[in-house]
């Protein structure tokens, strides 16, 4: 029985621009997860630990990170580790991460495939690997496995390892190393471990091609990430038995807080935060505020939520609220402030000039006899160096919200 752990897309050193300067702990978590997965493999005495590409986010990551990884691998000397350069860290030459001095003292149980090659996993099992040597290519990297596998004894268990996009119609780019959906069968492999996409993907080529996704999620919405594939093959030709093993260190979760029903939203928030209160340093949370509220209340709420999110590793607050008036309120506004009513019509007109489209559902204007002309609009904004053509729909949405919120404030 051959047993090994198939992982990919560790993306060590990944960038988390959406969180600004909060990326450091997220990067650190990925190294923690790698350690956990290696520990699992050693603890369970697996025959191999496979990394199917993109161990690193980029060929030019810090030396300190490379040293950390090399040291980490050295600590798990009982697990044979096989590393395949992927499209993020291809073996391109002297500048690539695999040519750093740290790798020169790598322990013998670790092998980096810098070119297509074969390695015995046991007496009757072999690993054939096809690494990437460039960032983009239209060539199926699994083609190199055909010849390698053909050279192996027919009675051996043949495990393939490569990196690229599965050539699923409409789901891949032609220059993204398209891998045939029959790549395992074509090369006569019992199992083909692939890396590239970050969500768990099985059941390709009769369950012989597996893409385990990234072991550590890197964005919200990747529900099928955070796992490694434990593979067990009893004998050649037998369908592999694959088990998803969760390794993720961090939990990426989102919540929508709807101000239209604040009581219910608060209840949901309490429940949401309670779930991660016991391990706040493992939670990456995003709360999206929606609905309508007064500016003052919104500011108060934002302050409160920021405080409540503070203990967690990452707590992101997104304001998608809209100050929306009821028809009665809107009618009152138009009646009380006809000049403002005219200005909302002007904003619609400006949006039409700027975007070429009508404001549509976001409009709160009434029909008016006095439409703003293009020359007037340009002269008006030009005095403050505001380029009409540069304005977007979002700018006008924000402008309406600004007026309504400021109106609320001054009216109060």
């Amino acid at each position: 029985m051959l047993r090994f752990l198939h992982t990919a897309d560790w993306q060590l050193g990944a960038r988390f621009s959406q969180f600004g300067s909060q990326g450091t702990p997220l990067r650190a978590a990925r190294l923690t997860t790698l350690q956990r997965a290696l520990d699992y493999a050693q603890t369970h005495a697996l025959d191999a630990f496979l990394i199917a590409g993109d161990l690193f986010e980029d060929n030019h990551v810090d030396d300190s990170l490379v040293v950390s990884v090399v040291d980490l691998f050295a600590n798990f000397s009982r697990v044979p580790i096989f590393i395949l350069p992927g499209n993020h860290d291809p073996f391109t030459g002297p500048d690539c991460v695999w040519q750093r001095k740290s790798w020169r003292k790598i322990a013998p149980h670790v092998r980096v495939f810098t070119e297509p090659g074969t390695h015995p996993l046991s007496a009757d099992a072999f690993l054939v690997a096809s690494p990437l040597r460039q960032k983009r290519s239209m060539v199926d990297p699994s083609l190199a496995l055909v010849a390698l596998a053909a050279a192996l004894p027919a009675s051996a268990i043949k495990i393939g390892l490569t990196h690229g996009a599965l050539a699923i119609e409409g789901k891949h780019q032609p220059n993204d190393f398209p891998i045939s959906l029959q790549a395992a069968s074509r090369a006569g492999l019992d199992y083909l471990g692939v890396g590239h996409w970050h969500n768990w993907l099985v059941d390709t080529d009769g369950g012989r091609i597996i893409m385990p996704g990234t072991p550590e999620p890197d964005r919200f919405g990747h529900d099928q990430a955070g796992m490694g594939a434990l593979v067990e093959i009893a004998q050649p030709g037998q369908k592999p038995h694959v088990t998803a093993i969760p390794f993720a260190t961090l939990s990426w979760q989102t919540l929508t807080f709807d101000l239209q029903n604040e009581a219910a939203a608060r209840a949901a928030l309490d429940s949401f935060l309670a779930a991660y209160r016991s391990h706040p340093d493992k939670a990456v949370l995003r709360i999206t505020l929606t609905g309508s509220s007064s500016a003052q209340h919104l500011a108060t709420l934002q302050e409160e939520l920021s405080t409540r999110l503070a203990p967690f590793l990452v707590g992101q607050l997104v304001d998608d609220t809209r100050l929306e008036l009821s028809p009665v309120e809107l009618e009152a506004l138009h009646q009380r402030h006809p000049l403002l009513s005219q200005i909302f019509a002007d904003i619609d007109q400006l949006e039409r000039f700027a975007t070429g489209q009508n404001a549509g559902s976001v409009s709160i204007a009434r029909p008016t006899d006095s439409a703003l002309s293009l020359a007037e609009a340009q002269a008006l904004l030009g005095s403050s160096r505001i380029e009409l053509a540069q304005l977007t729909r979002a700018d006008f949405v924000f402008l309406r919200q600004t007026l309504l919120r400021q109106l609320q404030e001054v009216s109060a």
Partner: protein
Amino acid sequence: MILLAVELTHVGRFRETIRLGPFERGITVLAAPNESGKSTVMRAVARALFDKHTTRGDEIKSLQPAGTDLAPRIAVEFATQAGRFRIEKTFLQSPRSLLRQEIAGSWQTVAEGDGADLRLQELLQSTLPGRGATRPEHWGFFGFLWARQGEPTAWPALDEEGIGQRIRSQLARVEIDPVIEALRQQLSRDADTILTSTGQPKAGGALRVAEDDLAAIEQELASLRRLQSELEASQRTYQNALQQVALLEKEHEDKKRIANETQALAQKAEGVKHELETRQVEFTTAREKLSAIVHDYDLLQQRAKDCEGLQSKQASGQAAIGAAEHRVSACRTQREQAQSARPHLENKVQSLRQALQRVQSLLKYRSLLSQHRVLLRQTEQASETVTRIQNLRAELSRLPNITPAKLRSWEELADRSRSLRAQLDVAGLEVILTPDQDSAIQVAEALKIREEILSAGKSVTLRSPQSIDLLLPGWGRVVIHSGAVETKTLSKDLTAAESRLQEELKSEGLASVPLAREAVARSQELSSLVRSLETALKQQLESQPSLDLLKDSAARLLSRADALEASLALTPAEREISQTELESEDARLAQACPAAEAELAALDQKLARLHTEEREAGSELQRVTQAHHTLSLTLQTVQSQMEALKARYLDGLDAARSRAQVHFAEAEARWKALQAQLPPDFEKLPERNRRATSVLQQVANELQQRRAERDQAQGALESLGGQGLYSRETDLEEKRVEATLRRNAARLRGTSARMGQLLIDFRKEAATRSVLQPLEDRLTSTFAEMSGVQHRKVFLDDSLRIVGIGPSRDSTHRFEDLSQGAKEQLLLCLRIAVAQELATKEPQTLILDDSLVNTDPARQIRIGEGLASLAKNLQVIVLTCHSDRYRDFQQISLSP
């Protein structure tokens, strides 16, 4: 607010209490001389209405009667929308304030002291200064509608906050909603914290800070990108060098192998080449020997063949000589025969030509004679015609020169005389004489005396136009005169006509008109005859211009005939021969002569041809004789050569040739066998060898260079790759995202706030503009009505200030440049317009305190009349020292 009544005590020159009023709506004139206190009344009213009763200041003290400390006390009754009120204020000493309202016909206290002041302030919508007395800008509408003495052309600023804005908003009907105004200010403040007024990021503002942060990050990123670019460039260099090194190494191996092979081949070829040269000499010698023998053999064969040919040609040449000689002889015989016939034929032609020439001369002679005779006849006819013409012209010259016009004139004159005479006959004297016995009487008439024979008893009637002069025998002379005027006139005319006719006829030598008529007819007849004779003469002269020339021509012909006759020396037979015979002979000779000439020409041609044939036959004979001689010489030469060739080879030419062929074949076989051992391009081998060595060296140099580049690029890549560029970029990218978010948020906030503020400003101004036009129209018509000047439009700016007047906005007379009179009239109109607008909500008082000081009296009167119609809804109080100009209006005096 409108004023109802005023009471003043201890105010200015009013030491006693004075009450003015009641004031009604419409125009009230407060007329009084200068310095009588009109303006003081209004100043006191303003202080009572708008100043706190506790106010102490120069403005209040100036109300005190001069030189006293008396406390000014003022009571003003007024009406607003809220009702009728009375305010009583005492300033300076024991100041007090009491506000009362008329309720159910009686005054009831509303407030006192400060409360009264405050309540009054609310009623009148006035304000208070921070300290001191109030100024007009604190007086609400009153401050604007009071044209104060000495300030007739000053107009308050309507763009100020407070009351100015209120007036402006009401005039322009713009809703200056306090909420919107607050919103505008809030937006302006928000925008100003981020942006400058020109849209630039404000120093220290969130946008500028974010942009500065971003710029710094971008700078660092740019530096990082340069390193990355260097890395990529090094990577490309390395990859290129790597590929080139691999290619060059392979190429170096190939070139080295080729160079070695080329060198071995060149050495081997060199040895073969030396031996080949020896074999080639042998081969060349054998080939040349064989070639010489074969040449001799072929030459002998050829000479034998040539000899046979020459002998055959020699026989043919002999036969040709005989034939040529025969032909020469025949040609000569034919030519001599033709030559002998030629003299006879030549004589014949000569005699025919002479005969023909003689006959033609004779014919010419006769022709000349004939022409001469014809000319003689023409000369005679022409001479006769000339004589006739001369005679006719002589007769014509003797006739009087009368033109048909002149003749018509005379005929008309004669007709007139006849007519006059007939009239006289009718109107003139008639004397009837019946003698007793036959007698003769003389009648004198027209200077003539005629005798009239009278028979006895027979009446004779004598008629005369005017008088009859009778000489009666035995009785004496009897002259009878007519006294009638008409006959006198007729007689006079008749005499004049007849005298004129007689004179004119006489001047032409004619006796009467009929003779003149005959002379004219004859003259015309003679002229016609002359013309026809001149035509005939022209035909007779034919081409000659005159008779003399015709005669000369005839003489010349005769002379030529005589000369020809002398030269011909005619024989009698020739003189006798007829013209017809002569012409027949001429025709015969004319045919015979060319025929003889043609025959002679044909004989000459034949002679020439026979000459040619004879020459050709001679030439042919000469040519064949020469050829035969040449052939004989050639044959002798060939036979000599054949003998010499045979003498060279003692054992025969065939045996010698066989031996030479064997030697040649052996030498050739040896040479070719050795040549086959040489490489095909063995001549180029040394050059190839040199080139291969050179190329090998070049490739080795290139390889060394590429290896150096590869190693250098590898070093650079290892160095740059280990710097962790991506990690540094990650850090900067994350900072950039954060700064970008900050910048975008700040820009969005600032831009939105600014746009909101700009839109509010724009709409406010637009609303103002929308009412500007009707207000201008109203002002224009009011101004026209008051000033009496039409066709001048008044223009306002956005702040409702008067810009000027003129035909259009672009060509106005600026307000500042107008006369003081025009200015005060315009402002009066504007005040009326404002007051009318304000009065739509609340009654208003317009106070004109000597506001038309610069306007002439006549125009003041018209303005006053205009005010009456314009101010129907207003209360207008006019303070003036000219009561006569407002005599139609209610007037009040300042008397206590």
